[in-house]
C-alpha cells in the first residue's frame, strides 16, 4: 500500500525491501516503507516486532543485510546522521556531566559549530524556562527534567527527519503535553517525524500516516484516514429502551446487553452507507437513546491484525494486554 511512486519529491525517506537477520532470528523481513515529508509517521507494532531494528538501521547504528534506503532520494550516507535526530527508547545522559556542557557536546557531535550550538541552546533554555539548570549535574535533576534535556538534545540540530522511539515514556502528563506541543510545532516548521510507539491513543492524536510491523514484517501501511476507512466494520452501537426484533436482510443483530435498565445492541450492516435506513427501522421499534457507528480505533485495528481477533466492542482490556 505504498504511496504514489511518481511523487518522489514528497518522500523524505524510502525503505526498500530491507531485511535483517540476527544470529538466530529474522528481525526484519523484506520491509518497505515510504515516509512522506513533513508528516508524522507512526511506526507501530508489538514489542519485539522489529521496530527498533528498523530504526537502528535508519539511524545507521546497525547495518541491513539487504535492501536499500533512500534519504532525500539519495542512498543513505553516514553524513546523513547529522540530519536525522534520534531519541532512542533506551535513553540517558552522562550523569556526572553538567547539563549545558553535555548538550553542547551532543550538538557538536551532530555537526553543529560551538557558536551555533550555544545560540540555539540559549533559545531552548529560555523556552523551557530551565536557565538555572545550565551548570547543574544531570544526576541532580529529576527524571522528568532529564527527559526534557534529552528532548532538547535530540532536536537541537534541527534535523529534517526526527525519529522518536516511545517519546512519552517517563514523562508525567504535564511534561508529556509540553513535548507533544513541541512535536506539533516541529511538524509545522516542516520536520518529518517518525514516531514509534505501541500507545495507540497518541497515534490517533498525532499521526498522519501509519505503518504496522508485526513478526518482522510490515502488515499495514497508509494514511490514517485511509486505514480507518478500509477497516470500517459497519457495526453500529445503539442504546435503546425496548427490545429490537427482526431488521431484514441488510442488518444482523450481533449482540444485545442489558445496561442500566437500557439495552445496548450491536448491529452489523451488510454494506456501508446504511445508517439512515437502519435508523428508520429502529425508530419504529424502540426509543433510541444513542446511536453511533463503531469506527475502529487503531487499537482495534492493531489487535485485529496482530491477534486475528475481530472486535467491535470496547477494547480496553486488550489494550492493557499490549501496554
Amino acid at each position, binding site marked *: 500500500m505504498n504511496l504514489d511512486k511518481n511523487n518522489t519529491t514528497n518522500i523524505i525517506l524510502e525503505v526498500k525491501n530491507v531485511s535483517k537477520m540476527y*544470529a538466530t532470528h529474522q528481525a526484519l523481513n523484506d520491509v518497505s516503507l515510504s515516509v512522506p515529508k513533513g508528516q508524522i509517521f507512526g511506526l507501530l507494532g508489538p514489542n519485539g516486532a522489529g521496530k527498533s531494528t528498523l530504526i*537502528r538501521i535508519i*539511524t*545507521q*547504528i*546497525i*547495518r541491513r*543485510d539487504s535492501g536499500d534506503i533512500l534519504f532525500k532520494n539519495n542512498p543513505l550516507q*553516514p553524513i546523513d*546522521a*547529522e540530519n*536525522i535526530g*534520534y*531519541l*532512542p527508547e*533506551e*535513553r*540517558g*545522559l*552522562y*550523569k*556526572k*556531566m553538567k547539563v549545558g556542557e553535555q548538550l553542547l*557536546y*551532543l550538538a*557538536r*557531535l*551532530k*555537526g553543529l559549530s560551538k557558536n551555533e550550538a550555544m545560540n540555539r541552546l540559549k533559545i531552548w533554555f529560555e523556552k523551557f524556562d530551565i536557565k538555572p539548570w545550565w551548570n547543574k549535574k544531570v544526576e541532580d535533576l529529576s527524571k522528568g527534567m532529564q527527559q526534557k534535556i*534529552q528532548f532538547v*538534545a*535530540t532536536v537541537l540540530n534541527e534535523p529534517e527527519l526526527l525519529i522518536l522511539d516511545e517519546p512519552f515514556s517517563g514523562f508525567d502528563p504535564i511534561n508529556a503535553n509540553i513535548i507533544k506541543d513541541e512535536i506539533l510545532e516541529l511538524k509545522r516548521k516542516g520536520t518529518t517525524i517518525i514516531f514509534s510507539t505501541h500507545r495507540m491513543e497518541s497515534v490517533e492524536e498525532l499521526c498522519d500516516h501509519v505503518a504496522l510491523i508485526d513478526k518482522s514484517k510490515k502488515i499495514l501501511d497508509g494514511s490514517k484516514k485511509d486505514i480507518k476507512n478500509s477497516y470500517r466494520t459497519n457495526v453500529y452501537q445503539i442504546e435503546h429502551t425496548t427490545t429490537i426484533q427482526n431488521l431484514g436482510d441488510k442488518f444482523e443483530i450481533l449482540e444485545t446487553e442489558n445496561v442500566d435498565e437500557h439495552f445496548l445492541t450491536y448491529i452489523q450492516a451488510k454494506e456501508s452507507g446504511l445508517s439512515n435506513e437502519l435508523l428508520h427501522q429502529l425508530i419504529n421499534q424502540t426509543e433510541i437513546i444513542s446511536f453511533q457507528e463503531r469506527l475502529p480505533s487503531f487499537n482495534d485495528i492493531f489487535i485485529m491484525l496482530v491477534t486475528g481477533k475481530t472486535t467491535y466492542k470496547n477494547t480496553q482490556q486488550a489494550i492493557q494486554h499490549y501496554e
Partner: protein
Amino acid sequence: MNKIWLVIQREYVIRVRNKTFLLTTFLTPLLFAALFIIPIVLMVSSTSNKIVEVIDEGSLFENKLKGKNQFIAKKNKMSGEEIVFEKSKFKTLAEAKKAFKESKKYALLYIPKLDIEKPTGVQIFAEKGLSVEVESQITQIVENTIEEAKIVKFGIDKQMLDKVKTDLNVETLKMTGEQSNSALLYGVGFGGGIIIYMAVFIYGAIVMRGVVEEKSSKIIEVIISSVRPFQLMMGKILGIALVGLTQFALWILLTIVIVTVVTPFLGADKMAEQQMKQSTEMMSEKQAQEVDKKTKKAMSGIANITKDLPITKIIVSFVLYFIGGYLMYSALFAAVASSVDTEVEAQQFTTPISMPLIISFVMGQFILREPDGAIAFWLSMFPLTSPVVMMMRLPFDVPLWQLGLSIALLFLGFVGSVWLASRIYRVGILTHGEKITYKKLYQWLFLKI
C-alpha cells in the same frame, strides 16, 4: 575524524578537571618528594650521638682514647649518627649499672680483664635492647681492638701486615669497556617494568569504567547515532591515554620542582657537608684519604649513570611501550566492559584477560636475573607481555633488532586487539541483560551487524 577529536576532548577534559585527578596529580609528587626529603631532614635533625659507656677492666681501650675519655668509633652513613665510646667513671659493673639508669647514655659496654687469645665475657647492656646494626658495629670495634692488641703481643710488624691486606674492588665492565653497575640496572629495569604494569592497569580500569558508565546510563545509543562505535571507543581510549601522559608529565615536573625548591630551603646540603668534614677530621689521615677516594668514586658513579644506562633508549621505549601496552589492554578492557551491564561483572572478565600482564610481572625476578635468557627473550617479543618484560630487559642493553622487532610486534598486537575489541564492542554496547560467556564474545566477533 573531527568527531573522534570531539570524543577525545570530552574524555580528556572531563577527567583532568575531576577532583580525584587533581588530588592524585598534586599529592603524589608530594609523596615522591617526601621520599627524597625526609631522609635528609632526619639526617639534619638527628645530631644526638649514641654514647656507649665503657667499663674497661683490662685497660684494652686505654691507648685509644682521645681527648676527654672519648673517641668516635663509627659513623652511620645513612643517618649521620655517631657511636661515641666514653670511659666510665665507675670501677665496677654493679656501680655503673646502677648509675646507668639515670644517665641518658645509649648502652653500657663491659669488658672484663681479657685473655686476648680467648676473649670471653664481653657484655653490652642497654635500656631497650640494641639494634642489630649497632650491636654488630660495637662488636666489630671491640674485635678490632683485640686484634690490634694481639699484633703487638705476637710481635707482628704492623706495616708488613698492612701491606698483606688486600682491598680488591672488582669492576664490572661491558665488552665495550663501559662501566656497569648491576644493582643500578636491576633497579631501573624493575622500576620501569612496575610503572608500565601499574599504568596499564590504572588507566585500563578507567577506560573500563567509562564504557560501563555509557552503557548503564543508556546514553550509548544517543551517541552512536551520531558517531561510529569505533570512533567512540578509540576516542575514549586515546583521551584517557592523554590523561595518563599528562599525569606522568606533571608528576615528574612537580617532583623535580618540589625537591629543588624545598631541599636548599632546609639547608640540608650544608649541614651534610659540614658533618662530613667533621668526621673526616677525626679520622686518621690515611682513613680520610680512603674515604675521600671512595666518595669520589661514588660521585663519579652517579655521574656515570647516564653513561651506564641507555637513557634515551629507555625513555623513548618507555613512552612507546606505555602507549602500545596501554592501547592494547584498554581496547580489550573496553570490549569486555561493553558486553556487561555492571562494573563488577566487567572486573570478573578482565582478570583472565590481564593474566599475561600479571605473569610478566611475576616473572620479573627470573627476567632480571637472566635478562638475555630464552624466557626473557620470548616474553619480550610476545605483545601481551612485552611492555613489562622489555622494560625490565632494557637497562641491560637489548640489541636494537630485538627492540625493533618487539615494538613492531606490539604494534601488530595493538592493531589486532583494537580490531577484536571493536568487533565485540559494536555488538556489546547494544546488548542489555544478557549472560555473557567467552563463547558468546567469540561469536560476536564474526557477527554481521
